[in-house]
Structures are given as structure tokens and as C-alpha cells.
């Protein structure tokens, strides 16, 4: 998240959260894609991408989300690194069953994740559009 966004009076914390969530969801989409494409590649381990917990704890923080490194009242929040940047988690998905060729991808699971991710991505954009629309309405004075 960019400090510039928070210093700007027009766009507030909620907008920064929405914007960042779009970036994160895009990255998750890429990970799912990679898994699906390699569903038959020998030795390929399915990857996962988690960011929800980190994003939620960033929201729950009532202070500014972007913490300046010089701030003496620096608060430790899980999922946020020292310079205040959100750290999503890319990991190898744990799996009970491994295919005979070492591949751990569950295609159906990946497609489901992808579908859910896409739905929320589009919903977030819709909400963002509404916020921007309100701003535009205000700027036009309601005309």
C-alpha cells in the first residue's frame, strides 16, 4: 500500500484496502493458473497464496495502515513487515495424496478457488466503482 494514498484526502483507507485486495487476488489467480496448467507435470507441487488474514489484520488496526519506519510507536501486527508493507503468504499446499509422478495438483480444487476468487474480484471492482461514482456525483454537484 502506498503512503501517498493515505495522505491524499480524497481517497481513504477503505479505498486502499479495496485496491490492494485487487492486486492480491490477481496474484492468487496467477498461482491457481500455474497449478492448473501443470496438473500433469511430474514432480510439480501445487502452490497456494494466502492474504486474507494479513489484509484483515491490517484493517483491524485502527491506526494508519502504512506505518512509517521512523514512528516510535511502531505496533507489531501479524502479516505486516517492519516497513509496514503487507506480506502475503505463498506456500506449497500440503497434501495427503501424491500422484505416482510426484504431482500434487487437484484440478477441481484449483478451479473452484479460481471461480470464487474471480467472483469476489469482480464484486470488489463493482463496489469500487460505486465509491468513485459517488465522488463524481459530488464533483458534478448532482447535475
Amino acid at each position, binding site marked *: 500500500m502506498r503512503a501517498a494514498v493515505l495522505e491524499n*484526502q*480524497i481517497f*481513504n483507507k*477503505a479505498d486502499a*484496502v*479495496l485496491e490492494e*485486495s*485487487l492486486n492480491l487476488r490477481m496474484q492468487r489467480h496467477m498461482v491457481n493458473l500455474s497449478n492448473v496448467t501443470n496438473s500433469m507435470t511430474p514432480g510439480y507441487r501445487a502452490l497456494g497464496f494466502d492474504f*486474507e488474514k494479513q*489484509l*484483515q489484520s491490517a*484493517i483491524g488496526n485502527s491506526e494508519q495502515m502504512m506505518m512509517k519506519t521512523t514512528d516510535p510507536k511502531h505496533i507489531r501486527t501479524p502479516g505486516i513487515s517492519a516497513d509496514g508493507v503487507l506480506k502475503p503468504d505463498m506456500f506449497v499446499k500440503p497434501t495427503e495424496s501424491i500422484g505416482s509422478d510426484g504431482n500434487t495438483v487437484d484440478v477441481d480444487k484449483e478451479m473452484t478457488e479460481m471461480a*470464487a476468487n474471480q*467472483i*469476489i474480484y469482480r*464484486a*470488489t471492482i*463493482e*463496489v469500487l466503482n*460505486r*465509491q468513485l*461514482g*459517488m*465522488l463524481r*456525483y*459530488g*464533483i458534478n*454537484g*448532482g447535475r
Partner: protein
Amino acid sequence: MAIKGITPTSIDFEKLTQDLKRASAEVSGKEDKSTSAGKSEFLDLLEKGIKEVNTSALEAEKSSMDLASGKSSNIHETMLAVTKAELGFNMMVQMRNKVIEAYQEVMRMQV
């Protein structure tokens, strides 16, 4: 007298309330010193309306953030909250326009 509560890019609800109170007082010729004495009904409604819009805006924000962060997957709840806030805000802007119009018209009247 300018109504400073609404600029092209933001709404300061506190200031807006005060400005509208002052405008209304000027027009009616009455001094509105305290919150309990001499308060017109119109002002009451206005204040309540502004507070409601503020609340619904905050709720919409919270609901949006919950949806985006995966805390809630209740899309229709967020959409409703956002739409309510949007409509409330639009109505607020229209009301401001009307108040300014009324004020200007009254000021134009020859006494």
C-alpha cells in the same frame, strides 16, 4: 455567506450542520444559540439526515472492506449497504442544492 461544509471533493458533516444552522438562522431572523432552544423542525430533520448518511457511509465502507478481505462472502449485503450509502449521499447533495437555492431566492427578495 458560503456553505463550506461541502467542497467538490469531500463532505464534512459537522461543518455542514453548523453552516446550515447558520444559514437557516439568518433567513428566519432568529438566533440559534443552543441545541435545545429555538430549534426549527427543518433543522432537526436536516441534522438527522446528515447523521444517517454519515452512518450509512461508514457501514458501506466497513462492509466493502470485509468483502474485499474475505472476512465476509456476503456480496448482496455489501451491495445493499453500498447502494444505500450512494442514494443517501445523492439525496444529501440534492438537499444541499435546494437549500442553497432557497437561501439565494430569499436573499433576492426585496423587503
